[in-house]
């Protein structure tokens, strides 16, 4: 993939922005201190990727929109993130399964985009690839421990897979279809190692990339955007 469209830059930025916000909800609420720090760090990485991509999208578009304009003043219908990342954190097993699904997808995406002829995007992607790989060690490690842990942790991890599976096909719409085989292989082996079954539900939800979201995104954006919308241009 070599063509950079503002649309695709925004879609990837939105994925990272929304997931950063979701993971941010867990800061001071994680099961233990080390996990709290890990999730906070992961959220920061996603936020950093989102910021770089919003800035690049704004420059590419050339209409003078800043990263803040793009993150804080676009509506739910204008956000084109995947449905997966806007799903509520649920329990820790759900959070880790969602992260694993997304990390593996992002590894394929960034590996591809790190060779883009758009060098700014290639640089952002090269950095994000290392981060996604690091995040994936954490999420896959936890999915293994939970799936292969107690009866209760196994049940919850399997429940996370079952509930979130319906949002996985959406990651591979359009040009992203090329990432699907590698994703499936990695996820399958991670689930086998964890003693978990892949999702069986053939019903797949899509719409995020066209701005049709689940009911959860509106609430997330309301919380994230209210300050800028109440006090436009407010600075830290």
């Amino acid at each position, binding site marked *: 993939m070599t063509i950079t469209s503002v649309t695709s830059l925004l879609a990837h930025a939105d994925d990272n922005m929304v997931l950063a916000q979701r993971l941010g909800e867990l800061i001071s609420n994680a099961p233990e201190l*080390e996990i709290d*720090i*890990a999730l*906070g*760090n*992961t*959220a*920061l*990485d*996603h*936020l*950093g*990727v989102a*910021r*770089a991509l919003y800035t*690049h999208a704004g420059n590419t578009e050339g209409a003078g929109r800043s990263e803040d304009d793009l993150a804080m003043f676009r509506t739910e219908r204008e956000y084109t993130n995947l449905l997966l990342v806007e799903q509520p954190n649920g329990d820790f097993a759900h959070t880790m399964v969602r992260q694993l699904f997304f990390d593996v997808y992002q590894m394929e995406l960034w590996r591809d985009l*790190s060779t883009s002829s758009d*060098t*700014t995007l*290639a*640089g*952002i992607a*090269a*950095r*994000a690839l*290392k*981060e996604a790989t*690091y995040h994936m*060690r*954490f999420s896959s490690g936890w999915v293994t421990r939970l799936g292969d842990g107690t009866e209760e942790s196994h049940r919850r991890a399997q429940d996370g897979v079952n509930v979130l599976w319906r949002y996985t096909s959406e990651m591979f719409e359009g040009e992203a279809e090329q990432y699907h085989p590698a994703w499936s292989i990695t996820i399958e082996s991670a689930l086998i190692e964890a003693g978990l079954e892949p999702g069986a539900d053939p019903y797949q939800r899509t719409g995020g990339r066209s701005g049709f979201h689940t009911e959860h995104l509106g609430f997330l954006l309301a919380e994230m955007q209210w300050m800028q919308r109440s006090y436009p241009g407010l600075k830290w």
Partner: protein
Amino acid sequence: MVTATTISIVTARKVAASVVDPEIPVLTIDDLGILRSVVVDEGRVIVTITPTYSGCPAMGQMEDDIVTAFERIGVEGVEVATVHFPAWSTDWISEDGQRKLRQFGIAPAVSEQDLTCPQCDASTPTMIARFGSTACKALMVCSSCGEPFDFFKPF
């Protein structure tokens, strides 16, 4: 008193290179390898840097600190530009920077097999937490002297 019009490139480079990482104040942005270029051109001073980790909150602080470092010697309106390509790597940390990190008690970025304790040089540390106090560090403990220490993640 210098200004943006009279500052020499040598001075400008020196001022920019003196800015330190707010989280690891023993390292300058030059040691870290994020200082890419300093240009003095007809009254404009442009300092170009490359971000480290996407999620490093110190980057914004360093940008402000660059501007302030120039203001301190009377040069106003310095521009800080960000370039993402090629992506920063811990390989860009200078040897001097690696030495300073170790003296500061942080194990510099090497592969995990080559990692040694910055306190006692023992080579059998174990990882306590993959995600440490900042985006760039993991938390280790030395199995010889028992001291916990930060490890600059190879990136």
